[in-house]
């Protein structure tokens, strides 16, 4: 994965599109992932487990945005369009699909799209919540 510029979380706004990042998943990557999750490896052969791709799409976001302390990953969506092969050259683009403050808590969602050339192979959405700091004003709402 390439190393893009990192953005401060509090500078993001809804509609922002982060720079597209290259992603190629290797045999070693898949082996390490399956050893960690405990899933049997043999059945995957030359293919990438779908939720591994989702996790690495999320890692793309983590590599691009400085995530504040205390952030909670509250929800996740993922859709696979087709199997992804190990070694396939992908790109991942993350869009800030929502970003709002409610009673001091910051709620954001990030949509990620993985492409092989022009073809979308998977999409995902990660929802996060940053609780208000202790003693913060929790009355305001903003986007």
């Amino acid at each position, binding site marked *: 994965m390439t190393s893009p510029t990192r953005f401060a979380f509090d500078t993001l706004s809804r509609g922002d599109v982060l720079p597209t990042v290259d992603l190629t998943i290797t045999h070693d990557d898949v082996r390490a*992932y399956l050893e*960690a999750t*405990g899933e049997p490896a043999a059945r995957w052969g030359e293919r990438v487990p*779908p939720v*591994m791709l989702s*996790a*690495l799409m999320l890692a793309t976001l983590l590599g691009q945005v400085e995530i504040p302390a205390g952030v909670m990953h509250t*929800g996740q969506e993922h*859709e*696979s369009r087709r199997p992804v092969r190990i070694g396939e050259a992908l790109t991942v683009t993350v869009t800030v699909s929502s970003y709002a403050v409610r009673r001091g808590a910051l709620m954001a969602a990030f949509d990620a799209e993985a492409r092989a050339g022009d073809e979308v192979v998977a999409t995902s959405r990660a929802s996060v919540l940053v609780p208000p700091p202790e003693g913060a004003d929790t009355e305001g709402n903003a986007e």
Partner: protein
Amino acid sequence: MTAPTPAPTIEPVTRLIDQPRVDHYAVAARDPNPIHRETPEAYAGPFGRPVAHGMLVLALLSEAMTNACGEAWERGGSLKVRWRQPALVPVEVTARATLRSESDGVATYDVMCEDAAGEALLTGTASVRLA
């Protein structure tokens, strides 16, 4: 060709998520957040100890769907979940799925991951096109 009949329930997957597994996952999934590891941040955080990555818990659910649906899960599977409570390490997690509906060749399952006490860690839906 007739679409295969979806299984009414999917064989659960149960696995212990302990700290070595979480540490290994942090590297493999490129998520080094200190709240998941044996760090001062984890012990000073709201849960008082390390919390497993939500995506590691979710991986068990995807494994269960793969067991049941095979390549159909890769071709057109989708998930939509919310985490209900943190998976405090160590935790034995069981992923379950029960058929909710089938329409136009798409099976939709209610899914959950629970701890050994039966408390929900994650709930949501998973859909897969059968043919």
